[in-house]
């Protein structure tokens, strides 16, 4: 009996050791909040902002936090980061955490979160201008196993900070709307006038350029008025940030291009306008479109031709001789 128990135990131990174990591959999952910080600050003032970093992966992660400046972005507000750039104002930023510092590794256990307490202290002598940075949190690089053949992946997640250093709440902004055109649809252009079918939806694209030295927000409306200045359609512009000396595509509040679907009643001249109103300036771009029932007229004309043809054929049918 003792011998049987011994053999059974031995077998179980052997299987437990030799059976293939479930090994999960190293994955990555990280979240950051908030994704955007917009700060207007006077020289000589300080602020702190808490960022929550959560490790969503199934293993502990060693990370490094850093501040990376940027001066450019694409038309959709994605910053072009310059990791090699240095600027004297980078010293305005620090982490108020007791154990976590910029460019020093720190760990977050799997499924846990950590707070980064970002401090911004603007000296009295700071120049009045915008500074743009991204707070990035990257996986810390370890040396690879010598038998590993291929690519070891690193991951970085970030949050943008748009900071305006100014002595006034609303520093001057200079926005200009450009390229406000019908994107597609039945449109004929003669000079500055557009002719469009009155039952075909029209899409419009436009960009806005910030020629000023401070970031601004694209608050405004897309408006359509008839020739008698009666409002026909009104839609909000998606309020997005546009940094200094950059360009952004304007979108509606759903994040799509602007669209106007005229009805049968929308015939004749109409004015379409994009109006952006910042706290201290306005900018407007307009286009004139004459809607006419092109498709409807063509349909009627074809119907007319068919009817005439039928009548002619019917009237020419020779009568049967008696």
């Amino acid at each position, binding site marked *: 009996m003792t011998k049987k128990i011994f053999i059974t135990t031995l077998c179980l131990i052997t299987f437990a050791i030799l059976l293939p174990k479930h090994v999960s*591959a190293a*994955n990555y*999952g*990280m*979240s*950051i*909040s*908030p*994704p*955007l*910080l*917009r*700060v*207007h*600050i*006077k020289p*000589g003032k300080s602020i702190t902002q808490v960022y929550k970093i*959560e490790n969503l992966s199934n293993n502990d992660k060693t990370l490094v936090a850093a501040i990376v400046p940027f001066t450019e972005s694409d038309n*959709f*507000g*994605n910053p072009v980061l310059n990791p090699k750039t240095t600027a004297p104002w980078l010293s305005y930023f620090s982490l108020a955490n007791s154990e976590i510092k910029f460019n020093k590794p720190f760990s977050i256990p799997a499924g846990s979160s950590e707070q980064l307490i970002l401090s911004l202290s603007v000296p009295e002598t700071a120049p009045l201008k915008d500074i743009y940075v*991204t707070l*990035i949190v990257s996986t810390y690089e370890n040396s690879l196993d*010598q038998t*590993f*053949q*291929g*690519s*070891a*992946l*690193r*991951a*970085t997640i*970030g*949050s*943008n900070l748009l900071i305006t250093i100014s002595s006034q*709440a*609303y520093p001057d902004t200079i926005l200009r709307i450009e390229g406000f055109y019908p994107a597609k649809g039945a449109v004929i252009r003669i000079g500055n006038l557009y002719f469009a079918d009155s039952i075909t939806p029209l899409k419009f694209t436009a960009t806005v350029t910030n020629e000023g030295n401070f970031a601004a927000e694209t*608050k405004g409306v897309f408006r359509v008025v008839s020739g008698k200045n009666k409002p*026909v*359609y*009104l*839609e*909000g512009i*998606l*309020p*997005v940030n546009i940094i200094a000396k950059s360009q952004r595509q304007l979108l*509606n*509040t*759903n*994040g799509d291009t602007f669209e106007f679907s005229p009805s049968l009643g*929308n*015939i004749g001249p109409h004015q379409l306008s994009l109006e952006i109103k910042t706290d201290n300036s306005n900018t407007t771009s307009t286009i004139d479109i004459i809607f*006419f*029932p092109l498709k409807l*007229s063509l349909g009627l*004309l074809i119907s*007319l031709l068919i*009817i005439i043809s039928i*009548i002619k054929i019917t009237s020419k049918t020779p009568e049967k001789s008696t």
Partner: protein
Amino acid sequence: MKVIYLITLIFFSIFFTIFETSLVYADDLKSPTFEIQMSTINITGGAKSSTTYKLTDTVGQTFQGQFNSAGYVILTGFQYINTLIPFSFKISDLDINFGSLVPGIPSLLSNTLTITTGSAFGYAVKAIEDHPLRRSDGITTIPDTSCDLATPCLQTDANVWSDNTRFGFGYNMSGVDVNTADFINSTYYRPFPVENIDQPAIVMSKGGVATSSAATVTYKINISGSQAAGTYQNAIQFIAIPAF
């Protein structure tokens, strides 16, 4: 006579359709998506709506008043996204280990990138490598692919790489928020940009809210018979940043 009557009738119909004064009623004024936004510091606020309008507002001290008294104003996130869900980025597998490579026979591996913008509006995921796949001697490399001879590819312009006599290392993208005008199908590849030389290349992006947008990255290596034996390694960095 009947024909003339018919033509006259149709002519007048067209004439009145074109030149009739269009009647615009008050309820033609459409503003179901219009939002009024106020720059105030939150005391209370929220979304209000009826059948004809949608308004998100904040009530409290004005931006100007807050700036004058405190010397700063902080705005976090995006007013038009009513969520506290954070911006998150996931990679299904961090180790792209090809193991042994056979000359002339491409090796393929893949993993998945997943983005949730949460309280951000739009994002871009960019990729860059530290250097081409390189042996421990620091000199010998597997070059980054230039795709087929007839269809050369660039770091931001994918093209066909199906010729097994063309050697190198590259990647293909498929799935949500991938530029399918560039990565047309699974035969289209790009080389990775190189750190300190090139700018990171966008591999996923969206100009709006993304909820668990997932894309597959397929990594491909094809080596020649003359490739020096050894272990080749590099590091690829994926950078996920929300738009502003």
